[in-house]
């Protein structure tokens, strides 16, 4: 069994890792949409929803925020495949769990953005008798997004870096690909993991820089 670094192996493993990287991006897209949209709905629901909904909603997302992603992934995957539908793919279930998990964080960032809006804005909206939909759509959400965009963006980057957690249920992202390659060829672990790390860095660093620019721009306006 070869143990040292091999450029030959690196070349051989690259297509597999690249496939895994594409899967990571797909998961990020699906879970990212869930995290961004569901988080917003939760934040609005906790603030403006019917009273019977607010507490349970808060409790559920408090629970999600305070338990490990890995545990959630395993529980949901086991439960769905045993009791609901064994045909659901690991990709679908994993993306959903990851998205909901991060929605529990993004909702907090949205909530902070909503809370930061001065009380006078709500009062002016009331004084003008604006309907609830307009108050949120035209007054609150536009101001909230400016305050929350950077934080939510950072959560999506953090989420992107946690996609490998899903290898535990068999989502063929980069780590799973590296392990599969190693299983077949008895080599490539070091090269595969290194490549995975570099691809993560290459993808998330520019986004992080862009997010920081966005943050500065929104703050300065």
């Amino acid at each position, binding site marked *: 069994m070869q143990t040292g670094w091999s450029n030959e192996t690196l070349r051989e493993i690259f297509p597999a890792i690249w496939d895994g990287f594409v899967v990571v991006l797909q998961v990020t897209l699906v879970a990212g949409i869930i995290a961004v949209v569901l988080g917003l709905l939760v934040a609005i629901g906790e603030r403006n929803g019917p009273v019977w909904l607010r507490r349970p909603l808060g409790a559920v997302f408090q629970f999600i925020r305070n338990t490990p992603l890995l545990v959630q992934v395993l529980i949901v995957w086991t439960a769905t495949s045993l009791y609901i539908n064994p045909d659901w793919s690991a990709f679908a279930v994993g993306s959903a769990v990851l998205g909901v998990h991060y929605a529990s964080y993004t909702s907090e960032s949205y909530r902070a953005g909503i809370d930061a809006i001065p009380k*006078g804005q709500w009062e*002016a909206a*009331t004084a003008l*008798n*604006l*309907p609830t939909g307009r108050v949120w759509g*035209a007054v609150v959400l536009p101001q909230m997004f*400016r305050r929350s965009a950077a934080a939510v963006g950072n959560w999506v980057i953090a989420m992107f870096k946690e996609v490998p957690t899903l290898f535990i249920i068999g989502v063929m992202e980069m780590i799973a690909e590296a392990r599969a390659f190693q299983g077949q060829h008895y080599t490539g672990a070091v090269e595969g993991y290194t490549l995975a790390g570099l691809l993560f860095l290459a993808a998330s660093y520019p986004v992080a820089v862009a997010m920081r620019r966005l943050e500065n721009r929104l703050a300065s306006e």
Partner: protein
Amino acid sequence: MRQNEAPREPSGPGPIIEFDRVDKSFGDLMVLDELSFRVDPGERVTLIGPSGSGKTTILRLLMTLEKVTPKADPERDGGVVWLEGKPYSHMEKKGVLVPANEKWLRRRRSRVGMVFQQFNLFPNMRVLRNVTEAQVHVAGRSKEEAEAKARELLELVGLAEKTDEYPSRLSGGQQQRVAIARALAMDPDILLLDEVTSALDPELVADVLAVLRDVAESTSITMLCVTHEMGFARDVSDRVMMFDSGRIVEQGPPDAMFSEPQEARTQDFLRAVLAE
């Protein structure tokens, strides 16, 4: 000590606003204590008094930003704000008065407009849209109609050339004048002015007051005004009401109130304010 108002002729036009033994407390703090008064249509009333005397709370109740502290039996004990002869803080349900719900308030409060101490313009909208937003989405006017009205009002407040600016690019005085235009755009019967010059640099106060003098002269709108600008109060108002601890200390026409206040508390208060 409290000056009771004469009973009203049943035939004449009724008061546009009536507070009937209204209580308002925040927790243990009693802000309004069995407060009763009436305002006639078109009347300009200035509320004065030390801070914490309940003036702003009266405006906030009229704008439904606060709710009255409910009494068990409104028919007998009052605690109701009436607007244009109909219950406002309450609504009739199966023949009895119950605290108003949001639907009722939404229907009634559009008769009332308010200008705030802190302007409260929407920072994400340009000046023009600040003035058109409610016209389009509450009054149901077309965009063209709303914009024409907004331009007319912005002209009136001397800001015709600022329609495309964001509020953050305007001075406090300019923002407040936009806020006045925004409130007037909804054609309220009642305009509430809550210390509208208190947050302004001294040199910007005059422009805002000039606009309000204009409004007072050119319209028949009912105005309730909380202010420390006694000159403005004297020029514009028909009646000055002096408050202390949630009660009316005395009230009367501005000349009488400012030159010969009867109550010691009014005298002290005016001396303190005019010495500023």
